[in-house]
């Protein structure tokens, strides 16, 4: 018989530091392109590209390509379903962090 876990499981897809920073950014804006996210998070191009692909494959962010003058603008936004997943992650983390000692 499987042992019932008392501590909730953390969503590892969201919990990864680079992805968490990207998601924290995207929750505060409607949409942003790759360059904007790159500058604001300070991640390397390669790392950000990998993280955005992971998030897109998981259905947390949606990609939009549109013509902007002569250039193609690729922007990202959170999907409607990702909000529930992020809210669940937050609740889990708040529950876990509540037991930790507070700073001075």
């Amino acid at each position: 018989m499987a042992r019932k876990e008392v501590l909730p499981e953390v969503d590892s897809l969201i919990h990864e530091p680079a992805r968490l920073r990207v998601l924290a950014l995207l929750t505060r804006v409607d949409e942003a392109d790759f360059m904007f996210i790159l500058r604001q998070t300070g991640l390397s191009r390669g790392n950000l590209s990998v993280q955005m692909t992971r998030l897109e494959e998981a259905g947390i962010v949606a990609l939009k390509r549109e013509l902007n003058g002569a250039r193609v603008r690729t922007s990202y936004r959170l999907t409607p379903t990702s909000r529930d997943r992020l809210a669940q992650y937050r609740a889990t983390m708040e529950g876990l962090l509540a037991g930790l000692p507070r700073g001075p």
Partner: protein
Amino acid sequence: MEAALFAAYWDDGLLDLLVGGALLAAGVGWLIGGTPMALVSAPFWVVLWVPLRRRLVEPYAGYVRYCRERQRRNAHGLLATAALGAGLGAALLVGVLFAGPTGTVPATWVAGLPAGIVAFGLVLAALLTGSVRFHGYAGLMLAAAVVAVWWCVEPGAALAAGALPLLVNGGLRYTHFRRESRAYTEPTP
């Protein structure tokens, strides 16, 4: 965090350069051709914002669209600013029309009125964009207005003098922004 992101949106110096350019053109226009020429040039600079931002900033800073609440607040702020600007512009016109020995407004005050109004506009710009430096520009513009009244110089000269800090700081900011952008735009070795 959203407010910090929004304030950082204006850090590249383009807004400073455009506002500075508009004020310098208005000031010089005033000195050359009088009030109408100064007023006519203003919309031209507003129209320049989108294409210049798209060409000079967006490729390096990236594109962002803020949430609806922020867009709504900006629209309300801009509307309020435009209404205030129109009101103050009308007050300026009345001041100019009724200035002089027989009028109701002392002529010496009129010399500082345009720069004073612009200083007020710069404070609004600081509040709208969250860019503290615009308070500094407003202070300098107000000082230019006081000097204009004190020494009875042309109103256009005060506007042009108050525009210089915006142009200089805007130029420095944009240069710094482009230099800093190299790290993001050049391919990783």
